[in-house]
């Protein structure tokens, strides 16, 4: 017996997914996250999973051949501003303020349009480095990487001593154009480590070697801020797990969708890695199912997240905004809005509004009975019969329908629906579902795709309850709901590949020169492969995908294009990239946007080097017998807006559902912490990967 273990620590729950490689059996466990010491929740969750195999924690760990882990540690530091390091910044003379000016974007970066319009209420985020912890160094490098003013060691020493005296323990070093000439930054590191061997040093030329001093600085400073905390945590965790019997190195899951061993991770790239786990799982599932285009949707308590799989791959965001800081570390492109189970419904002068305010986990929806009095989406779900009041989260929470109804009545039904609480609850659902549908539509259309040509995967606590409705709003007619939907991110963490991304900026001139470009690709490939080799991975098992960020001259938005497979390099690299760019550009912006006689420019090139985890998606054989209708566990009344009324609906227990089962809507399949709604007119079956496949338009052919 050997096992692979994945742990995803989220804000509320720590999810664990464990697969027995010999039988392909997967178990999941959920344990409350323990913010004061994340390790406790982790150990508890893994222990619970071990028990399901009849093993102790040590027995399971001893038999683990892989242990991968997504942690919320760095995300917490960024969103609570606690536990971060005391950071000092060394910058080029004249430019120490760039991290404070934030390109003037910092006041509103990442905020929605409505928030941006409340100018009075906008502020820049808290400063990670205050001005008195920024030291400017007399030195200058120009755009070509030429040193026009050399850096003097004594000057660095004086600056570093000053910061050390001020209590700085983690140093960020960002000099202008250092990605073209890193020697000055390297000298600074040498001096810091001479004076303070224990100090943590983040160099921008290593963390984010690309043009754009603000983003490079922000990425480096954030790395410096979160790194010591993460490293302390991982050191403790590693020691503890070894003591408990783990014999393999811990792999850390990163927001770019790959794992990496502890010595080679960049802490900044673990921020917001949670949502990437779901995307990885969807991508693996999609490729097993031979689905080229999937919309991945994750509905939690407060946010609704959407990511896309196109041609079997996810795409990366060219920049990521974390708490108003713009970062350039690899991150899967996921968009979100503030809409989820906890979103509060409110009346706005005759309008029915839902969110973005959320009741969160405290006070929570009114039906939780934890003191919440305002109506939420979950309250509407409970009132309309989608959730079982007695069996929610295995009965750990008794849903109070009376309190849900009182909240909906007071705030929504009385002012807007003449006291009709059912119409009000159905209205709340429809409003939030249409907002989610709009985000799906926007996210796909903006990226140049038609949502109707996708299937939609739904997971997360409230996803399956709403998926049929928001999919319909977006024009999608076929749904995939994995039966492990509530711990789906952890599953993604288990099966994630080991990935190393290396990128670099390309000068205007180099971008036109095939040889120089090919040489640059060789360089970054070598670096990426060496990084994987250092983790004990053979070069033979590494796949390298080349990409480039390009744009038309003067445009400030990049388009990333990939060179998949073995497209030849000799003499046609620039042409290949230009061709790929033109194609992609037309998909994104239409033919009218294309300019004659204008050659796009290559800004950055990079490679994603990946070694497969070797863990295949579990596939079972469909039973030879004809599909059989599943047997409902019981029935209850559910309100279906599709037919405009209550229907005594068949309710199925998720753990009794198995491959080959067929369902006809209306039906509800209950799972740990959520329910899958199959509306009237829809049909569903369980496929050989244990997904519930729902065809919304039963009569029509599902879209491919």
């Amino acid at each position: 017996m050997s096992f692979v273990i994945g742990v995803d620590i989220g804000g509320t729950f720590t999810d664990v997914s464990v697969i027995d490689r010999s039988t392909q059996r997967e178990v999941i466990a959920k344990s409350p996250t323990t913010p004061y010491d994340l390790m406790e929740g982790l150990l508890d969750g893994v222990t619970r999973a071990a028990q399901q195999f009849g093993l102790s924690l040590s027995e399971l760990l001893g038999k683990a051949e892989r242990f991968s882990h997504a942690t919320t540690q760095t995300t917490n530091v960024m969103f609570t501003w606690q536990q971060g390091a005391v950071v000092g910044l060394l910058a080029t003379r004249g430019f120490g303020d760039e991290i404070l000016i934030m390109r003037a974007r910092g006041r509103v970066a990442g905020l929605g349009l409505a928030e941006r319009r409340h100018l009075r209420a906008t502020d820049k985020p808290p400063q990670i480095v205050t001005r008195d912890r920024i030291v400017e160094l007399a030195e200058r490098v120009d755009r070509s990487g030429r040193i026009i003013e050399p850096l003097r060691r004594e000057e660095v020493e004086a600056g570093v001593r000053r910061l050390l005296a001020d209590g700085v323990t983690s140093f960020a070093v960002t000099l202008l154009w250092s990605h073209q000439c890193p020697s000055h930054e390297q000298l600074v590191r040498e001096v810091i480590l001479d004076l303070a061997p224990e100090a943590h040093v983040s160099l921008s030329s290593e963390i984010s070697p690309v043009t754009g001093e603000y983003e490079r600085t922000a990425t480096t400073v954030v790395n410096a801020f979160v790194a010591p905390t993460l490293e302390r945590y991982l050191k403790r965790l590693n020691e503890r797990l070894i003591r408990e019997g783990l014999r393999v190195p811990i792999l850390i899951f990163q927001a770019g969708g790959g794992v990496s061993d502890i010595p080679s991770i960049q802490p900044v790239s673990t921020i917001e890695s949670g949502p990437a786990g779901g995307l990885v799982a969807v991508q693996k599932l999609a490729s097993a199912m031979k689905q080229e285009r999937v919309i991945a949707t994750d509905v939690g308590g407060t946010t609704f997240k959407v990511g896309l799989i196109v041609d079997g791959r996810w795409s990366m965001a060219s920049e990521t905004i974390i708490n108003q800081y713009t970062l350039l570390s690899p991150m899967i492109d996921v968009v979100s809005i503030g809409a989820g189970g906890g979103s509060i419904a409110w009346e706005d002068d005759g309008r029915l509004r839902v969110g973005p305010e959320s009741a969160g986990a405290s006070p929570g929806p009114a039906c939780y009975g934890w003191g919440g009095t305002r109506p939420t989406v979950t309250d509407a779900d409970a009132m309309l019969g989608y959730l079982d009041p007695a069996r929610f989260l295995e009965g750990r929470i008794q849903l109070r329908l009376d309190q849900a109804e009182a909240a909906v009545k007071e705030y929504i039904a009385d002012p807007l629906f003449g006291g009709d609480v059912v119409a009000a609850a159905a209205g709340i659902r429809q409003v939030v579902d249409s907002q989610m549908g709009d985000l799906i539509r926007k996210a796909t259309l903006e990226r140049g795709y038609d949502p109707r040509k996708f299937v939609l995967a739904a997971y997360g606590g409230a996803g399956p309850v709403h998926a049929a409705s928001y999919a319909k709003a977006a024009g999608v007619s076929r749904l995939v709901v994995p039966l492990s939907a509530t711990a789906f991110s952890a599953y993604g963490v288990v099966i994630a590949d080991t990935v190393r991304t290396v990128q670099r900026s390309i000068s205007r001139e180099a971008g036109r020169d095939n040889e120089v470009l090919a040489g640059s690709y060789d360089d970054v490939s070598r670096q990426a492969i060496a990084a994987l080799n250092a983790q004990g991975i053979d070069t033979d098992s590494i796949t390298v995908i080349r990409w480039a960020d390009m744009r038309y001259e003067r445009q400030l938005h990049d388009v990333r294009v990939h060179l998949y497979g073995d497209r030849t390099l000799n003499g046609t690299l620039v042409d290949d990239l230009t061709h790929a760019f033109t194609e992609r550009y037309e998909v994104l912006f239409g033919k009218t946007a294309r300019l004659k006689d204008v050659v796009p420019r290559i800004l950055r090139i990079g490679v994603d080097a990946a070694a497969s985890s070797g863990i295949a998606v579990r596939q079972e054989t469909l039973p030879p017998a004809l599909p059989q209708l599943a047997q409902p566990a019981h029935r209850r009344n559910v309100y279906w807006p599709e037919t405009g009324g209550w229907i005594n609906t068949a309710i199925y227990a998720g753990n009794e559902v198995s491959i080959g089962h067929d369902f006809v809507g209306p039906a509800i399949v209950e799972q740990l912490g959520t329910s899958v709604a199959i509306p009237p007119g829809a049909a569903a079956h369980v496929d050989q990967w244990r997904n519930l496949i729902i065809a919304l338009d039963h009569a029509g052919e599902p879209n491919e």
Partner: protein
Amino acid sequence: MSDKIDPVLFEVVWHRLLDITEEMGIKYMRTSGSPILVGAYDASTGITLPDGKLVAMGPYISTQAHVLRLIVDSVIKQRMESPGINPGDMFICNDPYLGATHQPDVATVAPVHHSGALRAWVGSSGHWLDIGGSEPGGFNMTATSVFDEGLRLPPTKIVEGHEIREDIVDLIMAQVREPLAELDLRGQLVANEVGRNRLLEVADEVGPSVLDDVMRRGISHVAGRLRSRLRSLPDGLWREVQYLDHDGHKQNVRKIVCTLTKSGDHLTLDFAGSDAQVEGFANTAFGGLRAAVLSGVCIALGYDLTWNDGAADCVEIKAPRRTIVTAEYPTPVSMSTISAIIVTLNLVLVVLSRMLLASPRHHEQAMASWCATSLGVSMVGVNRDGTFTVAPEASHFAAGAGARSYADGVDTGGIIINTTANIPSIEATEDAYPLLYLFRRQLTDSGGAGRFRGGASGEVAIVPYESQGPLSTSFAGVGSLTPNAVGLAGGLPGASVRYLRFLDAARLDPESEILGLVGTLEQIGGKRTVGPLNSSKIEFGINTVEYHNWQGGGGFGDALDRDPAKVLTDVRTGLVSADEAFRTYGVVLTVGTTIELDGGGTEEHRQELRKQRLQRAVPFTDSHPLVLPESLTAQEPESGVEREQVNYWNIVAIDNAVNTMSCMRCGTVLGSATMDVRHGCVIEEVPAATIGPIRGEDYAEDYSKAGGVPIAIRSFYCPGCGRRLEADLVVPGEVGPSSVIFRGGVNTA
């Protein structure tokens, strides 16, 4: 609100409409390539009713969306007959006398026909990289009429039945020196195409009459919310004055006067008293004025609402013809957006903030002026590869934000007209243009002093680098003499604009020698000269260092009330100098290896400063006091309506029972409850250039020599304790801001 439509259906369709405008905006940005557009996001998009009434606007610059109503109106008036407005058409227009703000801001609108009728318009408007005319970028500093400026396009059909009129495109592009401006045009067409298609999908789905209901209700909902907000504010009259200190040709201070009347649920903004239109390009026509006013109203009062013409329904704009804010054909207006429009927008913000300060319920929303002017700076010449280049310098979009009633303004927080401000990175600029930056910093003492400090602005210094030929600088803007970013409730204005040139200050030849690399203004060597504003073709020689800074935000409240610990932090972080901490904030610091606060010394020094104010001050007499019109004074609140306390922020208490107004610091009675608080104060008037560094001192002397009257700060002190209750920016001897609040009370419902 009408109940014709089901609230759920409304919400579903409405959300879709908002998404459409946002998607249009994103498509527009991504397609168009110009750094002005994309770097500064100087654009917007919108959906309107068939008559042009704005339903929803996209992201970025609100003034760009507020023009759509007049543009559509002009298209309908001029093109309905010939060549006709048909399905699949689009019209282009940048005529400032027909609704556009200035020529570089081009709007393109598309009618949306469904089931045989015109149902709506979609439109996009944005700043093009170039619009022809005698100066690159469209600012002609020497213009005396519209004929000296860029291409003027009356409503012109550019897309006919879904086919782009390539002849019209060529006609336009033949006037424009920058071929990449075509991307700006294509971006607008793409945005409109996307918007129209999405809107038609909605019409297909819910039917055109539901779509129409939703659009109209979306406007009336905003109007309804705004009206109830207005009812919760006291009635009154507020007069505000602002200035344009350069008419395009010379330094010449002109006034913009706005009198706000708030009566019940309606606002009137009357610009009577504003100076006549000028010969130079600093004016705006009515379209720009309207866009500025509505943007100001949306920011100050509509902050939690959709921005659309629901606001216009509550606002009446009155203005005499042919003033500096209502210029008429053929007066030039090409600088309007960075002069008259943005100054007016900040004026409107300030006058509305004073209204908000009259009600404790609304104090929190008030803001002092943000950086009140903008700049148009570019370096023109030969790039390092020998090609012609126009390098826009847009760092000034990192402007200082106005202070709030509870917090400082945001440092380098962005420019107020742009909801998504953005400046280019240094490296991206150096990569694209033959320039090397010496520094870009937050500017010490640039935030207006106050109990809450205005946001700091910034400063930048640049040298030519690797240019293969001569460079010249073009520098357009106002606000060097006048610190336009005024404070509120005793707060002082932020820094004014300063443009300096240092000749023989650097030698940056990597092959031979590198001299003059410095990190601060003080370290720049060479011969210091003050650069002329609104000049083009200023030689930018290879040994010249060019420096400029822009306006900081206005302060809030008396600087002597600022928490000394905050002043200490500001000094430690370089945002306030030790000199200003002592002089303006009254804070005593001990400066050694570290900077520390002398608490006792500070208290003493502040007392002394207040005493000195009263010794210098004289009684105030207002030659033109505001008087409430009969219609306001006649209204008494309904009996039984609870009267709400009306204060002026937390500095002046107003007691209607005994009809007094008194200082909340010392209790001194300032006068009767029905007069302008200023009348009970003693005043001191000093040249603006003396209230702190970078407040116009580099320009004041020349202006005086040329016979101009230097602009002044008129401080109003409580005669009892010397607290500064107002600090108005005035021309000495002339009427300044004033206000009268109707004390009858407000409806608390």
